[in-house]
Every structure is written in C-alpha cells, then in structure tokens.
C-alpha cells in the first residue's frame, strides 16, 4: 500500500512540476488503481479546478464570428494522446525564412519553433508564453516580463539580457514601426522591461506576432556575423543562413528542413522544458515526432490532397471546396473571420490626373459590387469591406458602410462631377486623358479573379483597368514606383490597425504606402492610436482612422475572406482560433 502511495505521490510531483499533462497524469494514476473521482480530487488538491474530462476543443466564445465546428470523436480523446507520428500540413503560401528579424512573413512553423513573450488565448486575452509572468505599471509606461534562463535548441542558454538584446535588434527590422511606442528594452534581474514612449494599449499585440518571436540572439548574431555599425544591412546578415539552415529558439520543435516552393520540416525537441501557456494541456514535450508543411499554392489542389490523405491538416482550402469538405464526416472544418483584406492602391503622386481627386476615387469605388464579389468569389465565405477593417474586428466601426456602397448611378454622377466625360469608345476622358490604367495583380487565382471582377465593374462606368498579372516578386519590385498606377494587395495581420497604417501613412511613402497617400486626417488618427493609453482613446482613434480611410480612400477596400482550417479527425489537439493566424502544436497528436 505504501508503495502504491509512493507511486501516486511521485506522479503528483511530476504533474506539479509540469512534467506531465493532465491526460498523462490521469492515465498514470488510473494505471496505479486510482478511480476517476479520486483522480479529480487529487487534481483539485493540486489547484486544478477544471473538470478532468475537459477536451481540447477551442472555447471561442469571445470570437463573435467564429463558426468552428469541431466534431472529433470522443473515444480517442478519452484514450489520451498518442506519442509519435508526423503531422503533414498543407499550407497555402510559400514557406518563408524562419528568422523573425529578417523574414518578410511568418509561417505556421514559427508557432512550432519559436515562442513569443506572450500569446493570445482562445478568449482573446494575452497570456504568458516565453515569460512566466508579466505586468504593466500604473502609468502604462513600463511593461515587465519575468523570464527564466531558458535552454535553446542548440544547447545554449537564453537569459533576460539576451531577450532584451533580441528585441533591441528586432527594432531595426522593417516591421518594427508597428511597435514604435516602445522606446527600448531594459533588464532588471530576471525581468525584461519594455520602456514606453507613452502609455499604449496596443503594446502586447505586436509582441505576440511572429516577428517578435524570440530567437537565441547569440546564435543569430554569430551566424550572421552581426555588428552594430552595419546593422541588418551588413553583408553577413544579408547572406546569413540563419532561418534557412540554422535556427535556434525555444519552441517544442526544432527546425530541420526549409525548401522554398516545396516544404518545411521540424522535429520534436526532446529537451523542451514545457510551455508556460496556461491553456495548453500538454505541459511537456510535444506529442508529435515531426511536422511537415507542404506548400500547395494551387487552390484547387488543397482540398483534394486532404481528401486523398496526402496531408492531415490544411490551411485555407479554396472557397469553392468548402461545402464539400464540410460534408465529409472524416474531416473537421474550423472557420472564422481572417485578419486580412484585399485593397487596391491608387498611385496619386505619379498619376494625379487619374487618382488625384477624391471624387474620381469614390466614383470608382461606388462601381464595385462588393457583396456580389463575396458571393461569387468567396462563395459567401467572407464579408464586404467598405473601410479598412474586417467586420469582425472588435474596433470595427459600422459607420464605414455608408461609404463606398454599390451604386452605379452615384459612381457615374461622381465621375461626371469630376469632369470625366464618356468617350465614343466607352472610356471616359478628362482634359484629353483617358480614364485608363494598368491594374497590377499578383499571379494567384483569387487575387486575379478579384482584380478582373473589379476591372469589369470599372468598365461599366467608363474606366478601363488593364489587369496585368505578374509574379509576386515583380509585384513588390514595381509597386510604389512611378510606372504603376494601381495594384491589388492582400494584407494579413492579427491586429488590423497596426498593419493598415503602413499602407496609408505619409511617413511610409512610397513603400508600402504605394498610393503615395498623404492624408492629414489619417496621419492624425495613426498618431492618436499610437498614443492611445486607454481603451476609449484606442477605440476613438481606430474609428477615426476607419472613417478617414472610407472617406478619403487612400486605398480602395474590396473584401475580407474567412480563414478556414481543416483537419482529418485522426488529428487531435489541433485547435486554431480566431485570435491567432495559426494553431499551436503543443497539444497536437495523431491517432495511431
């Protein structure tokens, strides 16, 4: 009997030290002959107040538009996680460099390899991830993150000073302006302290994204032979293999392979000390042996590969395949609003004769049937956007819907008023200049369809948009330059206000403010947002920003698609939620 007690005591200690997940704990005490009620009592004694039978299903009550419908079978869940196996995930974009400082985008792999100082729970709250605890000073000018020394994949140690140094260098990255109210970072014992220029309610948002995920800065510097004089422009950094061949971080998986255009591959890190994220069930090493993300840029192929069993999980199938996938009993479809949008930039500095006046821009905007585009192109899986924000955002201001609605008569009236008269060939002219322009779009099926649809609708009011489909690299090379009057762009970012300011602030002309828009109202709203110390001030600034965008049209918003995740029902613990772009993999396991 005492031996049995000792065994149970040992299991309890392991659980308290977070070496075991709740499931593992229940399994072990069950094997030791403890009944479910007694096990629950033991958990309660450990401070665990959740019922023992809680499943990993996401609790997205705070996400207003989430329509996730996980229908995982109960029996395997009760059996508990199985260790092993490789999760094969289909990804709708090309893989990007696994370096948070120099990458141009971050992929799902960042959620497996790296940890952010904080992350977002399914309820939309910020919770610790890398840090064990965090707090904000009463005046809002100081954020303190408690961090323990952590071992990284390479075996090196990351201290609080290393984290602060990582953030210091990260401030040189192209995306750093999104957190510009953070002045600098300091170290105070085991705490990293973010010193603010001003109190700002948006401080934690950027820190939870992929670009601020913490790398072992010592390895990063060493691989890229970094020095402060040349910064990120240094030859060593530019040519660095960090992120492509070498990655050193603290997530539950280690970078193994990165092949652009094909896949990326990570393997379980067996020395992972466990996660601090409170809503993760698995506090120990990952269940999966490995994860492979396969690039499937061909929209129609994604669903087919999942149905054929070539992949286990999938990000963003083509909209036309969604109904079929939802009807498949072997699959579970998660669907929620995506923090993204499609807009058209209009280069008004180099083409003032076309886009210099707001009447013309508004005239064109009224010609676009956004609701029709949502139905036809997204199969209803999205929403029309009359302003910059997706409709699901907590700061979305419905007042923008009074602008830019589909009204061909109003479009013609505005264009007439702007001095554009209809030519004999059906194209309007003003002062001998035809209302005709190149409309550059990236070579991707949905974007091409959106541009083609918009161009067709412009032509109904006498504007000829010549769609020019180009490679992604060419798009970025040409956008903002003097030779491109207009282009379609898709943005994706979990905090709309942060990223959207980049596309219309006067200080980001010409890139990525490709419109060269210089609107004092918008600049003021951005300044107000970045100095918003209260929720009320933040809400007002964001509302002002949206209305100013909808009225002055620095860019013309079209539609916002929903984000869709699909998994085979053999996969468990893979629970995407609305507040994060990608799911975490700590809890994920596959039925044997």
């Amino acid at each position: 009997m005492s031996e049995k007690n000792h065994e149970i005591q040992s299991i309890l200690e392991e659980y308290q030290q977070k070496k075991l997940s709740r499931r593992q704990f229940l399994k072990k005490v069950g094997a030791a002959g403890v009944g479910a009620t007694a096990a629950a009592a033991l958990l309660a004694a450990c401070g665990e107040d959740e019922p023992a039978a809680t499943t990993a299903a996401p609790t997205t009550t705070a996400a207003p538009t989430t329509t996730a419908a996980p229908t995982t079978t109960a029996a395997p869940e009760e059996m508990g996680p199985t260790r092993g196996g490789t999760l094969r995930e289909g990804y709708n974009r090309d893989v990007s460099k696994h370096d948070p400082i120099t990458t141009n985008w971050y992929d799902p792999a960042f959620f497996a390899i790296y940890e952010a100082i904080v992350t977002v729970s399914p309820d939309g709250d910020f919770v610790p991830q890398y840090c064990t605890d965090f707090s904000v000073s009463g005046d809002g000018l100081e954020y303190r993150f408690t961090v323990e020394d952590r071992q990284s994949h390479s075996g090196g140690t990351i201290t609080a000073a290393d984290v602060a140094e990582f953030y210091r260098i990260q401030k040189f990255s192209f995306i750093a302006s999104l957190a510009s109210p953070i002045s600098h970072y300091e170290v105070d014992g085991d705490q990293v302290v973010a010193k603010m220029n001003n109190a700002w309610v948006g401080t934690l948002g950027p820190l939870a994204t992929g670009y601020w995920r913490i790398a072992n800065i010592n390895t990063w510097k060493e691989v890229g032979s970094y020095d402060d004089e040349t910064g990120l422009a240094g030859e060593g950094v530019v040519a660095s293999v960090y992120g492509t061949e070498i990655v050193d971080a603290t997530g539950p998986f280690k970078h193994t392979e990165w092949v652009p255009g094909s896949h990326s591959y990570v393997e379980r890190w067996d020395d992972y000390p466990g996660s601090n994220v409170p809503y993760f069930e698995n506090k120990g090493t990952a269940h999966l042996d490995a994860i492979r993300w396969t690039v499937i840029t061909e929209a129609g192929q994604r669903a087919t590969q999942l149905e054929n069993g070539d992949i286990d999980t999938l990000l963003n199938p083509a909209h036309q395949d969604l109904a079929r996938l939802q009807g498949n009993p072997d699959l579970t479809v998660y669907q929620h609003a995506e923090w993204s949008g499609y807009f058209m930039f209009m280069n008004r500095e180099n083409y003032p004769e076309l886009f210099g006046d707001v009447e013309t821009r508004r005239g064109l905007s009224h010609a676009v049937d956004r609701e029709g585009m949502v139905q036809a192109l997204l199969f209803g899986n999205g929403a029309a956007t009359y302003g910059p924000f997706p409709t699901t955002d907590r700061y979305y201001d419905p007042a923008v819907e009074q602008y830019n609605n589909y009204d061909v008569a109003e479009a013609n009236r505005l264009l007439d008023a702007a001095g554009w008269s209809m030519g004999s060939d059906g194209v309007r002219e003003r002062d001998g200049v035809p209302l005709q322009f190149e409309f550059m779009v990236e070579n991707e099926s949905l974007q091409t369809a959106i541009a083609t649809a918009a161009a067709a609708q412009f032509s109904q009011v006498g504007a000829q948009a010549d769609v020019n489909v180009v490679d992604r690299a060419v798009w970025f090379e040409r956008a903002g330059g003097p030779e491109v009057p207009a282009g379609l762009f898709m943005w994706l970012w979990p905090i709309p206000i942060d990223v959207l300011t980049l596309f219309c602030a006067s200080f980001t002309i010409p890139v990525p403010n490709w419109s060269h828009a210089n609107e004092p109202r918008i600049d003021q709203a951005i300044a107000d947002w970045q100095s918003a110390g209260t929720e009320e001030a933040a809400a007002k600034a964001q509302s002002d920003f949206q209305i100013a965008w909808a009225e002055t049209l620095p860019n013309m918003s079209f539609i916002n698609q929903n984000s869709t995740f699909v998994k085979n029902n053999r996969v468990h613990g893979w629970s995407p939620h609305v507040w994060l772009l990608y799911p975490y993999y700590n809890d994920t396991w596959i039925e044997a």
Partner: protein
Amino acid sequence: MTASTPESYLADWDRRLLDFEESQHISAFRRGMRNLVRNRLLLSGVILGVLVVGAGVLGPVIVGGDYELINFSNIHAVPFSEDALLGTDHLGRDTATRLFVAIRVSLAVAVGVTGLALLAGLAIGTISGFRGGWTDRSLSGVMDFIWGFPLILVAVLFAGGLGEGLLSVILAVGLVNMAAIARVVRGEVLALSEREFIEAARAGGLSNWRIIRKHLLPNILAPALVLASYYVAVAIIAEAALSFIGLGAQPPLPSLGQMVAEGRNFLQLNHWETTVPGLTLVVMVLSVSLIGDGLRDVFDPRLRHEAKGLES
C-alpha cells in the same frame, strides 16, 4: 517509210520531250488535286479547320455580347443553361462569347507568328544554305543557339523584359519557330545546291537572286509549308501553355489556355469551364496537324508510298 534527217529527228524528239514534260506537269497538278480530295486526313483537317476558323471569325458576330461582362448572379452555369449556350465561368461571364474570342486570339497569334517565322526562316535558311562560308556558319550558329533554348524559357525572358502579354508570346514563339524553320530550309537548300539544275543555272550565268527565286524557292516552298502547318499547331499550344501560366493573354482578354487555367480550380464544381476550352484546343490542334499531315502526303509522294509499304 519516211526518211528523216537528223535535224528533223532532233526537232521531233524535242517536241515529244516538251509534250512529255507538259503532260507530266499537268498530271502532277491533277494528281495533287486528286490527292487533296482523296486524302481523308487532309479532308478531315480542312473540315475541322473551317469549323474552328468559322467559329473564331463569325462566332463573336453571331453570338454578340461582351466577353468582359460579369454577372455575379449566374456563376458556374453549365452548358445549355438559360442565356448561356456553353455555360458561364466563375465571374458569370458567358463562356461561348469568351470562347469565340479566345479562338480568334489563338488563331491570330498562331497564324501571325507562323507567317512571320516562315518568312524570316525562309530568308535566313536560304541565304545561309546558298551562300555557305562564314555567312552560313554565322547564321546557322545563331539559329542553333536560339533553337537550343526551351520555348518556355525564351517566353519568360521576353515576359521579364517586355512584360507579360501576347507581344511576349508572339516574339518568343516566333523566334524559336523561325530558328526551326531556318534550320530545315538551310538543309534543303544545301541539298538542292548540289543538284545539276542549280549547277547548270550557275553555269548559265544566272544571278544568285534569280537562282534563288526561280529554282530554289519553288523547290523548298512545299516542305516549308508542310513544316509551317506543324508550327501553327506548335504556336497554338505554346500560346495556350503560356497563357495557362499567366505569361500570355492578360485578363480580361480571353485565351484558351487562360480559360483552362481559370476553370481548373472549379473542376469538381463545374468541369465544363475547363472542358469546353480544352476540347476546343484539342480540335484546333488536331485540325492543323491533320492538314499538315495531309499536305505532307500530297507534296511528298515518297512518304505516302513508304506508308503504304508499311501498311502492306
């Protein structure tokens, strides 16, 4: 018994020889026409070709409508739906209207490209083969160099320099096809240059231009035309392939490759969006290939006889 002088004998022989040559000439023409009618491949190709060209030329006039016009309330309609003979695409655009315009685009590109390639290829190949020496070495070197590049790569290079669109396709396909035609023509000219009638013409003091015009071109035109028909098919496929990957016709201007590319994302929803332009592409290429094969049979009886020998 009539005694004949050597002179009258020679004159009679000349006359008989001329009559024979004339009869041979006429019978060759007649034989050609007969083959033209009797050759089932050629006949099938011509019939299909007439249908396709008719659709391209007259279709837009008969069907009318705006190929750019979208209709969100009628997307992915199947053929023979109301107001949509061949259905509609993902933007609700009428497939028939777009198809006919796409055929026109394909034909214009194919015929235009091949015409230019044929003219340039004939000129370069003839000059190269006839002149020989460093001219031949230089020109054939350049042609071999161009021919060595894959068509898609050349198209990508042009698209990079000039931007995506039909102009890049025309230049890329035209350049590669020109090199192919020039190489074949050069070979023919080299072979012909060794023949007695060319040597006789040279001995007779005819100018190079006259020899080329009167003696070489008539002899290489037939094989060149046969070759050209093959390259029309190549051009159709190349234009479709390049439009499929986004380097060819730019939206909203339809092309067969682009229609196939747009439709492939909706195969399980409405396969007709891909099937209709795909089948049209097959018919176009088949008709041109059949015409090419038929012309080859007509102009080169040896192949026909060889084929018959194989069949027997």
